[in-house]
């Protein structure tokens, strides 16, 4: 009976870990920026959290299904990280997935007033110039934000071996005048926890296999 319970427990945790493996890339893409602590920030945390891709809107009171961006809401870029800058669409991403950011105040409510705001103009994928306001808070997130703004990020950024993996992607807010405000990535505790879970699961399996192999009887023996 006890064996059955522990076996089922093992399967349960195994399933959780496998689900984690599947979900981690999604989480890495997701924008769970609020509620964590931002590198170098030290500001208060809290605030809203929702699913997905930062949706830009100048109307904080706007309902979640309305989207002021002229871009269609039913398409979601395959690589959200490259949706900013030269290589892809500059505007906020689709309504589906990620974390919604209604306005810049959502971000500043959690992370405070930016230390520096830099306006810049970059061409978007259609060749037209797009105005951006890049908010810097200092710390590691700023560096990652600029990396994302370059258009494409190194593969290492998507692996657990790089700190950027544990950060969300930049948050974008489209202003009424068409410009886009960019807020730096924030540390994602959920990604960290899931990574630790999966890593722990893998280590557990390896130790189990090694221990079993050590305790086991050799392949030459009739006792197997």
């Amino acid at each position, binding site marked *: 009976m006890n064996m059955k319970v522990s*076996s089922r427990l093992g399967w349960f945790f195994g399933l959780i870990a496998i689900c984690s493996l599947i979900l981690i890339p999604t989480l890495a893409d997701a924008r769970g920026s609020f509620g964590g602590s931002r590198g170098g920030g030290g500001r208060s945390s809290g605030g809203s959290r929702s699913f997905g891709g930062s949706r830009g809107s100048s109307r904080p009171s706007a309902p979640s299904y309305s989207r002021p961006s002229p871009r269609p809401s039913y398409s979601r870029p395959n690589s959200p990280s490259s949706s900013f800058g030269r290589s892809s669409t500059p505007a906020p991403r689709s309504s589906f997935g990620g974390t919604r950011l209604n306005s810049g105040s959502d971000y500043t409510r959690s992370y405070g007033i930016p230390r520096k705001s830099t306006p810049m103009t970059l061409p978007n994928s259609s060749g037209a110039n797009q105005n951006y306001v890049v908010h810097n808070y200092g710390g590691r997130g700023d560096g990652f934000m600029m990396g994302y703004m370059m258009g494409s990020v190194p593969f290492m950024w998507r692996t657990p071996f790089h700190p950027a993996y544990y950060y969300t992607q930049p948050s974008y807010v489209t202003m009424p005048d068409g410009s886009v405000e960019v807020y730096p990535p924030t540390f994602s505790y959920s990604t960290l926890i899931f990574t630790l879970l999966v890593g722990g699961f893998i280590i557990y399996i390896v130790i189990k296999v090694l221990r079993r192999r050590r305790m086991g009887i050799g392949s030459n023996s009739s006792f197997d």
Partner: protein
Amino acid sequence: MRSFSIESNGRLENTAIYFNGEQLSGVKEIFLNLDEDGTFDAILRYEGTDKVIYTKQIFTEYFENVKVRPPSYSEDEAQNLQLLTVESDGDIRNTTVLRNDEQLDGIISLFVHLKNNVTKDGGIKSLFSRAPESNEPTVFRAEITFRNSDDSTEVEGVFS
């Protein structure tokens, strides 16, 4: 007349069991207790091809669903191993014990107890089950008691 052999260097990891020339597999326990007084216990416990554990009298019962495997050791490797063979029909009077193919005489008793307590439960499922890790140690005991010409007795390990 059946032939039952144990080839080993004293470690269970390097122990091959032969029955009528075929190497067995899936063996869990061997218990031989032969005595000149007529005691004849020869028991083999093994896991069959149907995953069922069988307990059989070695020299009198049929080994149902026993697993056999190709010989593990080459002749060169066997040089480092001791081979104990018991040929019998289940009666102590018709029992011959050989060590490294040499017949032994003057045996008072033969005691062999080999037991593997490591449970092999294959598959990924087994990685999550805390199951049956027995506290009993692996058993490897094999002794022959001889009677010397001066009527003294001497106990010898078989595989050491």
